[in-house]
């Protein structure tokens, strides 16, 4: 069996180590929280090491062939469980396992006092397994399976404190909203398979090259359906409502799943199947009003719109985690917009850097929450700079990266997105610049209110720095947060995603100033937005005792705080449609099925039975009479 062993088959270890850990914890060691945590952390650290090894081994390869397992053959449908190693998945592997390792370690400190620590780490390992499955998958069906698994583990982790009603509601909401998107995703997969006859990425790419005509008729619809899946996982408008509520989970979970990895899966998947969107778009008859738009246009607009509304919502939130959640939404909108503007390289670049600094920010927020005894309202904090220096400095670096301050990583990736936008659509470029401004504004507000000024509550007064096991991951995560802009991630990805557009920057200094060289407008606008946003926030929030914006903006501020009433609109819509349908179903069930069917049958049987019982008198002569009468009847009938 091991005769034809190839080094790339090591990748299977990456996939199955977390599964082994999850199974081991679930079956044997769940009771012992500490031991379970050690198992889980060891597994994820090993996966990270193996990923690093693979990355070093194959970083120059375009596509590493691996041996797939044949899993399912139904007629023409051939589904493999196979691994795909190319620059895209190798990079994503590093991000997922790297950030994952840090967050596992951090969780060890954060969850120390929780008596369900075993369950927590088991779910975390299950999540790692599912996420790595998506990253490594080489076909759409396998992606879909792991896609759902990610949904399940996210459900488990959001609802980790299930005794809190809000957490229980949030995990249901997340799962159901995701299912809505996944329904479109599987329709898209079926459409792809029906048109092109394969679900494997490799095969699809080849068939598309050979016969692009067959695809162009359905390309737009299939593309949008697949995008539905990404819309659910990456929380794009109109399915964005679950992500802020998902913050009910433990903070490390928010950092890992709802900031760095799972929500990025949508963007990753879009980049993975980006070649499907390339074809010339023809809309079918009933959608002819969309002529002149391609699927990618629609995707980019949805992304841009999400980025804008999420940034606006973030401006008036007071919960530290919710601000970061809306910020995540907004940045995901950025990435999706970049994909829609035919810039998957920029999207993946931003995804990578965002994973680092957003995980850092969430872990920092977790550290603050931990120090303030689970106080999450930023207006009850304040002055934490002196009490928690490590958290403060790392959080500040994360914030600067998110705002796009050079030379931190966020600047370069955001600039890549802005540059893509400026090349393709002026309007989206303006939106993107506006979002950059808002991002700086709400992040500066967050930092100014939380860490500066006076202590506004006892909790903040008694806050102290988090333990080392929580502080070190923060420090380590600052490294990629600061430096990821110089690692040539865009070049590395560009080899696969946009081979014609690879430019070499040369040495360090050139890399540093490259954005100003090839897209000066984007870089300058981005920088300007950052500076303007910061000065605005400083003017309003430096030493502010309470938020002055609600008074100034009035209704607009309330709308932003109440998330533009999307939840209310949705529950109204659900009340109209879903409730009406369920009322009808209830009526049908109560009166037709239960009433006419079950009770009718039972009633008529009983009435007939009661009538027949009257005949059974027990009197011999009645029987004799009936017998004779019957005989007479039969004779009459027979002799006629």
């Amino acid at each position, binding site marked *: 069996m091991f005769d034809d062993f190839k080094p790339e088959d090591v990748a299977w270890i990456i996939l199955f180590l977390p599964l082994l850990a999850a199974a081991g914890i679930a079956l044997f060691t769940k009771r012992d929280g500490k031991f379970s945590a050690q198992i889980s952390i060891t597994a994820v650290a090993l996966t990270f090491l193996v990923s690093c090894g693979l990355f070093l081994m194959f970083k120059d390869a375009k596509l590493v062939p691996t041996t797939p397992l044949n899993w399912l053959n139904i007629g023409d449908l051939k589904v493999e469980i196979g691994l795909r190693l190319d620059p895209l998945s190798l990079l994503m592997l590093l991000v997922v396992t790297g950030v994952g390792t840090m967050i596992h370690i951090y969780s060890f400190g954060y969850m120390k006092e929780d008596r369900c620590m075993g369950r927590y780490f088991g779910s975390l390992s299950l999540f790692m397994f599912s996420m790595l499955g998506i990253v490594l998958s080489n076909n759409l069906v396998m992606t879909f399976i792991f896609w759902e698994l990610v949904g399940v583990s996210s459900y488990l982790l959001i609802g980790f404190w299930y005794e809190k009603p809000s957490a229980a509601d949030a995990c249901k909401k997340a799962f159901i909203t995701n299912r809505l998107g996944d329904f479109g995703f599987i329709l898209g997969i079926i459409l792809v398979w029906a048109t092109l006859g394969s679900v494997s990425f490799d095969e699809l790419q080849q068939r598309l090259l050979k016969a692009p005509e067959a695809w162009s008729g359905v390309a737009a619809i299939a593309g949008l359906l697949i995008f539905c899946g990404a819309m659910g996982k990456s929380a794009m408008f109109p399915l964005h409502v679950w992500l802020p509520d998902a913050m009910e989970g433990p903070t490390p979970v928010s950092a890992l799943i709802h900031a760095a990895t799972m929500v990025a899966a949508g963007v990753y998947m879009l980049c993975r199947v980006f070649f499907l969107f390339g074809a010339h778009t023809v809309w079918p008859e009933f959608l002819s009003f969309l002529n002149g738009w391609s699927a990618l246009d629609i995707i980019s607009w949805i992304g841009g719109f999400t980025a804008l509304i999420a940034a606006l919502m973030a401006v008036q939130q007071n919960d530290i985690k919710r601000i970061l959640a809306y910020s995540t939404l907004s940045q995901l909108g950025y990435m999706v917009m970049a994909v829609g503007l035919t810039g998957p390289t920029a999207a993946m670049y931003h995804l990578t850097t965002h994973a680092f600094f957003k995980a850092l920010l969430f872990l920092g927020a977790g550290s603050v929450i931990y120090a303030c005894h689970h106080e999450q309202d930023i207006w009850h904090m304040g002055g934490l700079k002196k009490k928690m220096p490590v958290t403060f400095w790392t959080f500040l670096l994360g914030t600067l990266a998110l705002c796009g301050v050079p030379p931190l990583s966020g600047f370069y990736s955001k600039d890549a997105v802005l540059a893509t936008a400026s090349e393709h659509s002026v309007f989206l470029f303006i939106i993107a610049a506006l979002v950059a401004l808002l991002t700086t504004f709400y992040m500066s507000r967050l930092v100014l209110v939380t860490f500066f000024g006076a202590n506004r509550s006892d909790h903040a007064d008694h806050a102290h720095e988090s333990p080392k096991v929580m502080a070190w991951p923060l420090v380590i995560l600052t490294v990629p947060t600061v430096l990821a802009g110089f690692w040539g991630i865009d070049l590395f990805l560009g080899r696969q995603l946009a081979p014609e557009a690879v430019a070499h920057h040369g040495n360090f200094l050139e890399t540093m100033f490259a954005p100003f060289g090839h897209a000066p407008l984007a870089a300058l606008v981005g920088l300007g937005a950052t500076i303007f946003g910061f000065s605005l926030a400083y003017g309003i929030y430096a030493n502010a005792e309470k938020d002055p914006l609600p008074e100034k903006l009035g209704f607009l501020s309330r709308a932003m705080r109440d998330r533009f009433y999307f939840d209310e609109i949705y529950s109204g819509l659900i009340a109209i449609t879903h409730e009406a349908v369920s009322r009808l179903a209830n009526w049908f069930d109560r009166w037709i099925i239960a009433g006419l069917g079950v009770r009718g049958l039972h009633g008529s049987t009983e009435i007939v039975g009661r009538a027949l019982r009257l005949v*059974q*008198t*027990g*009197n*011999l*002569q009645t029987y*004799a*009479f009936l017998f*004779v009468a019957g005989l007479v009847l039969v004779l009459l009938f027979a002799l006629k």
Partner: protein
Amino acid sequence: MHLTPVGLEHFLIVSAALFCLGAFGVIMRRNLIVMYMSLELMLNAANLALVAFSRFNNNLNGQVMVFFIITVAAAEVAVGLALIVALYRKRQTAHVEDLASMKL
């Protein structure tokens, strides 16, 4: 006075009349013994019909059958009367209204 010769119909009519009387007795009389006698009457009505058929068909099958019936009836009377006596001893009655225990 012209007498029609006695034919099969006459026998059968008598047999049917006897049978109906028997059936009527079984249905209407309340006493078990009388019901039992009526039952015998019905049997004998059948016997009469069989004998008549035998005679008019010129073969003995019917009469052989009748012997069997008489034999079986004798045995049945023995069993039946014994049952009635046993019932009477137990319940102190031979009226069917009092013996409605077949009803659940």
